[in-house]
């Protein structure tokens, strides 16, 4: 962009992605801007995303389609059978055209095959009611109204953001009850994305922020906000580090008043409480760092006219002019600023992930700090390293022009910038490292445990470091003590002996052998897995290795790699994928989704980087987190907190699935036993397409007489009440793999329908062997026959539903009894009047006459009872395996158990054993057992009183942990209740 100003040389500025204002951006700090709108209309993200979303179809709908095909076949075969038999029957002399029923001339002239065809079509019309068209309407209604219950649920209401759950689609309610794989983001989903500065390490010395929350380590009580450790770093180093923290960021200060009087603060007369100062940044880490620096005495005051102001410990204002910001990006994993001090020095401050900083600083500095960084990472903190570099004037000039050129380049701008950045960020000196804690979400561990108890496999997909992610997994009890970790990362690949590809294959084969072949043949899904006995596996892979697995150098291996990888993953309870790019997340979801058995996947995330995986999975859940609304907008359901996922799946999902599955089966069943008597009647009426029921009954059956009870059922049924569902996560497994809509239950329902249809028809058929059913000797005709069958039918299918209803609210009562009453009322009404618009008064007084016959009453009663008898019997005999036995032994199945409130409040306590001690790496597989033993020994002797605040050496790392576990143990032993409910703590004994 060229800028022309009067009396000046045209200046050239670059326009990049950072200049793009996305939809929803708000203007601040300036009154107006000039802009050009790009990407409008159909090119907006919203419009582009729109198409992909509406294509999610639930597994239930697939089942419906399959069943529909079966019923279509039944329909066609019925029509074919009837047509064939009709012509066979007619071939007999005198049957085709008896004298009392002669054909018109036109009928006689019709070509034979044409007649057959029209007969076939007539049968199709006659039997078409077997296809439950009204089911689609009911299903849609059920989904639409049903989704309100999620929205209305008070448990999903979060008082902080004053919002409840949001339902973006009602198509997938039942899918919530079918989830087999949960893909979760880490930051903001498992963790709160609420960063807190925990400690820093300057020049190898540890500085720890102490506050009330860390009372668990409370050996030393400190009075000041900053506790300095005994040998401490030099003051210059300390201040340099804190300055770096204050300068190297893109945080903006949000003042309470618009223009704070700087003078006041300069005098120090008005000490504004710093805590009230608001910071705004794209990344919460940066805010945490700036706030952390503030606690140590360096306050960032804001950026004005390219000048960054800092108040140092002496309450002096330091000013730095900001020359360049080398933005953060996920590839470089670091960011830098170039500032100029008042004295004219040009400094480059850089902060970033250890892996990206360490190679760029002097090696001798690394060792002292690496220790802290690694320890912090295993503790579950997010670590950043800070480095700086002094630029000479010449160096700066080179950098300046280089950056300018790169920014203005129209081609390969990214690459050129990257090269320039890399060139600049070399030869730095390392000052220190920071540790920021991202606290776990409320009840994250309970939620994850409940989901695992429900048989779901949880995959954590994160962009974070492996160590950080791993400890989060431990904290969330995704990995437990007994979990054997299979690691497939760059680290395990590079053991120096063989090539990466070979090593990868070797590892894959080995893990496959362990997790798949050696494991006892366990069928997941319908068969409940005994998960206490068998070995659990956890799998860890990182982005780079995943790329290698997905796109191996030789294409021929691709399928082998993938299938090995998938099989391993499928046998692991938890899979952790770290260092993932957003697209890789979607790639993984897609791979699992398309794997054998096409399992139902659920993605949950809160940020824009999760959108791709949310869109890819069968069910996408957005968390109304801190990272904007993008995930929420693209999700199918949005919930305020992770903990709500438990109720959403275990209660709502389960219920919706049971409801809709029952609804579908019931609809097919009731239409089958509706139309079967009509089919059978053809054998008794010379295959003449004579309907058994009156047209009004045919039409009203699905619309009025039997639709409301099932709708009420499908909205209100709670076959197991919500509390029990939440307490017993294993109940979820009973409906896994579409259990209620598989072929077996479908066959059961179909057989039931056939049985009842036969009952209805032949029961009345035998009664009509003497049609004189009234006490005055008068006889009943064909419409009476049909009406008796229909009455039995309506009562039976409604009472069948009544038998299935486990949760009778007044709505169910009114729907069921109301429908039956309506049927009786309607029949009286329909038969009570000579309808002027009807050509034939076929049903006139038929119903009333029927009721005047005792025999009709008796046959109706016995047929209803007989039809329901097998159902009642099954129900009684099935009882012992029902919820009764479940309640008997809650201790065993109670996995999602009583929520123990403590654990998530103190998540770090759960991080006891070293990750390495469980990790299986081929090269040091033998030593992990010895480590375990060592740790037990340490526990026995009780290494109490270890001063973990002194500087640590690598050998001391483990005792520190034992110390913690020891304390934890003491804590736990007082609290026997939480002891019972959290199996992960048992190892301490």
């Amino acid at each position, binding site marked *: 962009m060229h800028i022309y100003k009067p009396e000046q040389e045209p200046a050239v500025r670059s326009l990049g992605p950072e200049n793009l204002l996305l939809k929803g951006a708000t203007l601040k700090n300036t009154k107006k801007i000039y802009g050009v709108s790009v990407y409008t209309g159909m090119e907006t993200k919203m419009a582009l995303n729109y198409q992909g979303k509406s294509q999610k179809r639930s597994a239930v709908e697939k089942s419906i389609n399959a069943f529909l095909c079966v019923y279509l076949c039944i329909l066609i075969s019925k029509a074919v059978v009837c047509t064939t038999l009709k012509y066979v029957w007619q071939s007999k002399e005198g049957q085709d055209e008896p004298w009392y029923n002669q054909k018109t001339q036109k009928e006689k002239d019709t070509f034979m095959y044409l007649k057959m065809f029209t007969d076939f079509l007539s049968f199709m019309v006659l039997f078409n009611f077997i296809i439950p068209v009204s089911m689609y309407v009911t299903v849609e209604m059920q989904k639409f109204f049903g989704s309100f219950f999620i929205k209305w649920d008070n448990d*999903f209401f979060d008082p902080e953001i004053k919002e409840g759950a949001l339902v973006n689609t009602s198509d997938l309610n039942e899918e919530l009850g079918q989830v087999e794989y949960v893909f979760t983001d880490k930051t903001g989903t498992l963790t709160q994305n609420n960063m807190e500065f925990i400690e820093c390490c300057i020049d190898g010395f540890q500085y720890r922020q102490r506050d009330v929350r860390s009372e668990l380590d409370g050996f030393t009580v400190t009075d000041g906000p900053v506790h300095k450790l005994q040998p401490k770093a030099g003051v210059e180093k300390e201040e340099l580090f804190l300055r770096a923290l204050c300068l190297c960021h893109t945080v903006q200060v949000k003042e309470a008043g618009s223009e704070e009087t700087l003078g006041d603060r300069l005098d120090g007369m008005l000490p504004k409480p710093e805590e009230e100062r608001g910071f705004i940044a794209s990344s919460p880490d940066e805010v945490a760092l700036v706030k952390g620096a503030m606690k140590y005495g360096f306050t960032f005051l804001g950026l004005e006219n390219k000048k960054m102001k800092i108040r140092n410990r002496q309450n002096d204002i330091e000013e730095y002019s900001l020359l360049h910001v080398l933005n953060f990006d996920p590839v470089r994993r670091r960011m830098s600023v170039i500032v100029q001090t008042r004295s004219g020095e040009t400094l480059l401050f850089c902060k970033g992930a250890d892996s990206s900083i360490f190679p760029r600083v002097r090696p001798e500095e690394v060792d002292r700090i690496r220790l802290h960084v690694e320890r912090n990472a295993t503790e579950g903190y997010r670590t950043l390293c800070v480095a700086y570099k002094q630029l000479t004037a010449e160096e700066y000039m080179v950098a300046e022009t280089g950056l300018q050129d790169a920014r203005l380049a129209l081609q390969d701008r990214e690459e050129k910038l990257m090269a320039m950045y890399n060139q600049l960020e070399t030869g730095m000196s390392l000052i220190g490292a920071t540790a920021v804690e991202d606290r776990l979400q409320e009840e994250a561990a309970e939620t994850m445990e409940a989901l695992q108890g429900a048989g779901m496999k949880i995959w954590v997909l994160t962009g974070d470091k492996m160590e950080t992610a791993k400890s989060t997994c431990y904290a969330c009890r995704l990995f437990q003590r007994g979990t054997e970790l299979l690691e497939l990362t760059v680290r395990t690949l590079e053991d120096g002996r063989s090539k990466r590809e070979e090593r990868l294959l070797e590892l894959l084969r080995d893990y496959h052998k362990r997790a798949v072949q050696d494991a006892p043949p366990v069928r997941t899904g319908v068969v409940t897995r005994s998960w206490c006995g068998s070995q659990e596996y956890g799998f860890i892979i990182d982005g780079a290795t995943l790329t290698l697995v997905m796109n191996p150098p030789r294409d021929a291996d691709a399928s082998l790699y993938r299938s090995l990888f998938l099989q391993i993953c499928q046998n692991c309870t938890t899979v952790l994928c770290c260092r993932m790019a957003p697209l890789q997340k979607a790639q993984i979801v897609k791979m699992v989704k398309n794997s054998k058995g096409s399992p139902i996947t659920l993605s949950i995330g809160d940020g824009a980087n999760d959108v791709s995986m949310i869109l890819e999975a069968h069910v996408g859940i957005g968390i109304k987190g801190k990272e904007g609304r993008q995930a929420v907008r693209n999700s199918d359901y949005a919930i305020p907190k992770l903990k709500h996922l438990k109720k959403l799946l275990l209660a709502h999902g389960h219920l919706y699935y049971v409801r809709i599955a029952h609804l579908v089966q019931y609809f097919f069943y009731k239409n089958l036993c509706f139309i079967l008597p009509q089919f059978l009647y053809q054998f008794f009426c010379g295959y003449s397409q004579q309907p058994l029921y009156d047209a009004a009954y045919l039409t009203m059956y699905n619309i009025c007489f039997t639709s409301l009870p099932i709708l009420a059922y499908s909205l209100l049924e709670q076959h197991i009440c919500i509390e029990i569902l939440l307490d017993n996560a294993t109940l979820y497994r009973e409906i896994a793999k579409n259990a209620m809509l598989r072929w077996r239950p479908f066959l059961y329902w179909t057989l039931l329908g056939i049985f009842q249809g036969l009952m209805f028809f032949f029961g009345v058929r035998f009664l*009509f062997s003497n049609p004189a059913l009234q006490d005055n000797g008068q006889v009943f005709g064909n419409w009476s026959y049909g009406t008796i069958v229909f009455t039995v039918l309506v009562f039976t299918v409604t009472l069948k539903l009544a038998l299935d209803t486990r949760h009778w609210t007044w709505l169910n009562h009114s729907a069921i009894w109301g429908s039956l009453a309506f049927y009786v009322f309607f029949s009286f009404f329909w038969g009570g009047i000579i309808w002027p618009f009807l050509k034939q008064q076929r049903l006139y007084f038929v119903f009333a006459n029927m009721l005047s016959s005792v025999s009709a009453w008796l046959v109706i009663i016995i047929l209803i009872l007989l039809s329901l008898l097998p159902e009642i019997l099954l129900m009684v005999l099935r009882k012992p395996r029902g919820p009764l036995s479940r309640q008997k032994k809650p201790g065993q199945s109670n996995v999602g158990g009583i929520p123990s409130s403590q654990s998530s409040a103190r998540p770090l306590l759960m991080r006891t054993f070293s990750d390495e001690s469980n990790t299986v790496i081929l090269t040091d597989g033998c030593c992990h057992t010895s480590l375990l033993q060592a740790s037990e020994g340490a526990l026995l002797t009780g290494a109490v009183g270890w001063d973990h605040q002194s500087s640590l050496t690598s050998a001391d790392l483990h005792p520190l942990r034992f110390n913690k576990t020891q304390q934890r143990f003491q804590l736990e032993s007082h609290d026997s209740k939480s002891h019972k409910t959290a199996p992960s703590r048992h190892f301490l004994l």
Partner: protein
Amino acid sequence: MKNEGESSERPDNTAFTQQRLPAWQPILSAGIVIPGFLIIGLAFIGIGIGLFLTSQTIQVLEGPVFFYYGLSNYYQNFRKYGVSTDYYQLSGDTQYFKSPQDSCSPYSYDSQNKPIVPCGAIANSFFNDTFELYQIINGTKKLVPLDGKGIAWWTDYNIKYRNPTLVNGSLANAFDGTSKPLNWPRPAYELDLTDQNNNGFLNQDFLVWMRRAALPQFRKLYRRITEGDYAAGLPAGNYSLTVHYNYQVLNFDGQKKIIFSNVSWMGGKNDFLGIAYLVVGSLCVVMSVVMLIVYAKFKFSEDDV
């Protein structure tokens, strides 16, 4: 945007929205089912015995005796046959006397193209055999009086079917310009020569015929024997039945039969219901016993645990 606006409010905390409506949760426990089955079974056996005995006591000899004619392999339930009628004619609408509905075809017009009233296959195939029953007492025939009243549904006779309004006090004039159905010996207004009120569409035999049978083997009520010496039933003795054979059944392998029967509260003789009740009743009793055994065992083993 609307969604966000709504959800920013706290959801209603009502029993309905929170899915906490008070509900009755029935549990079919053995304690209910076993006695239930037993009671139902016993009740059914009771009803079954009653039905069966009633059905067995239905005989010819106790009055009033009902006289049925039966046809087999006769499909009154053909669809084409069933629609081949014109209700408007039968409700006395003379407008339709001139142009019967198409559904009556090929029984709408005769060879002179005069409209047939009543048109259609059902009316045309009206059963026109007549019967006379004699008791033979000492070699002499004594006519048993047959009562043709009250054999059709009350509503058919009084409401559903109507004769056309009389023209010049004569029913025959109302049928002017129409032709009798081909198979009929006499036109509709002369169906019953003895009783003027039993003519036209309100002829009871005609009404009985017009109510189509459900199955190809059916019986229809012909007469009741309610008068004179026979009101209490047909006394034992020799009887002779004279059949005026008009109705063709042989060419479609049909059969005709005559049934004399009395009826009870449950209608005509039918063993099916009684047997069905007995079977289901005893089934219920047996099952309750089986369940009791199973339950006892189950409970026993439960105690062991």
